[in-house]
């Protein structure tokens, strides 16, 4: 039964996609747009095929991927550690909160020009931008997660004589994991944006560089093809985190389903 429904759903995805391509073709046909304004779907498909065949996309996507993943893991790790410390010790937060709020309010991509000047045109500056964005998302989520452990649970752990380490391992970590994963899902997409903006500011490789270069050439098909690659990369990274979440948080996935009904999760 569920198999049939999901097959229908997938079929409708395909139908919508084909209809979209048809509309696209139709608009080009009616208004007779030149390729440098609105490229045709097949010119983009060709560009994708050629670019993938000669390794152009692989080469640039690899660089952006590296920047994103390194920035995400390092920023995320710092976010989790500091978020825990701030959540656990309210006095630390009291001391630093105005600065944290100020830093949080700064649109991180606005720092990109500065960071590129500081960390150069290579990978470093992009990793820092991607990391900075991820840091704040995870920092806030972990802080809230640690704080939201109920007094009841603290009393329970005290009544069974759990020590601080056991409390951390048996309560704080699993309690915070749903929020860590929620932060990671938001963080990974933001990290890609950070890496791309960094590449816009100044770089010699990466999909952001390719986009800027292609727009300089008025190479519309290449621009759109690069965006497609970028999107696929983003989806892939998001999916990896979603799969990890399912693996580590099966209890939570079923719990959320119970709360909001059986919504199809991505």
């Amino acid at each position, binding site marked *: 039964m569920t198999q049939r429904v999901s097959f229908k759903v997938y079929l409708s995805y395909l139908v919508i996609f084909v209809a979209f391509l048809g509309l696209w073709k139709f608009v080009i046909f009616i208004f007779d747009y030149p390729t440098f304004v609105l490229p045709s779907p097949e010119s983009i498909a060709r560009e994708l095929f050629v670019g993938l065949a000669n390794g152009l996309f692989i080469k640039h996507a690899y660089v952006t991927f590296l920047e994103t993943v390194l920035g995400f893991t390092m920023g995320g790790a710092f976010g989790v550690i500091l978020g825990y410390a701030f959540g656990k010790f309210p006095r630390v937060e009291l001391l630093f909160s105005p600065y944290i709020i100020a830093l949080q309010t700064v649109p991180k991509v606005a720092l990109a020009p500065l960071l590129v000047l500081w960390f150069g045109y290579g990978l470093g500056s992009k990793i820092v931008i991607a990391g900075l964005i991820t840091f704040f998302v995870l920092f806030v989520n972990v802080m809230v997660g640690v704080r939201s452990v109920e007094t*009841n*649970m603290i009393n329970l752990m005290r009544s069974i*004589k759990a020590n601080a380490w056991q409390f951390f391992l*048996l*309560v704080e970590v699993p309690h915070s*994991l749903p929020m860590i994963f929620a932060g990671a899902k938001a963080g990974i997409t933001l990290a890609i944006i950070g890496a791309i903006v960094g590449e816009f500011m100044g770089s010699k490789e990466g999909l952001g560089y390719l986009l800027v270069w292609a727009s300089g050439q008025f190479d519309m098909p290449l621009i759109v093809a690069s965006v497609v690659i970028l999107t696929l990369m983003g989806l892939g990274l998001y999916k990896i985190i979603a799969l990890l979440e399912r693996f580590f948080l099966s*209890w939570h996935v079923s*719990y959320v389903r119970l709360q909001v009904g059986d919504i199809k999760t991505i």
Partner: protein
Amino acid sequence: MANETNHSQVAIKVAGVEKVYRTKSRDIHALASCTFEVRKTEFLSLVGPSGCGKTTLLNILGGLLPPSRGEIWVEGRKLTEVPDNIGYVFQDPVLLPWRTVIRNVRLPLDVRGVNGKQAEEKARQALDMVGLWDFRNQYPHELSGGMKQRVAIARALGYEPSILMMDEPFGALDALTREKLNLRLLKIWSKTQKTVVFVTHNISEAVFLSDRVAVFQGHPGTIKTIVEIDLPRPRGASVMDDPRFAQYISVIRKDLGHLEEEEEI
């Protein structure tokens, strides 16, 4: 009442225990001086209106809260931290939502470093006692309120403490579930020979379960009197038809004094 109990029969001795909560603006006297004993393997209930300090007293006895004054001895040892021989059942079940039923029951055993096989066996026995072995692999959110509280009881039984502290464990349940769980609790109690300190605001529940009922009164709260419940054991639902059952309830109601003074509720 009579306190001529022999020392070896005393599970918990409470001497002049008081609690004052200090806040910035004022001191709140939550518990006035309490002195009493809990006998070994007895079922003692603490009864009183909400906010009279019964939970405060229970938390002090369990070592979760330090008293402002007075001393407590648990099985002959002066209470300075959470004792090893106490199992706690809270008002809410407080199950860890990421652990299955059996792993929730195992939690205290894991914390105490009991090895895998032994812990598994003890958890099995405890779950058998509350009749939830078949649900061992469910998650808490898949259980009803009554079942969750039974898991919480199994968790407290699992590491075989000699004393059970129960803080209105069935307060949030419907009357029928509550009665069923009361019967089950009595069976477990008689089988395991535990000392139980049971907090409730339900007079008939207290009479039904207990050997003695400690009646709380006043602000700050203190134990006004302790009523011996001389009803036959083992007790089943038919005990409630015994005329003495109704008498005990009316005695305790009078002791609580809440029918004479039309207080704010």
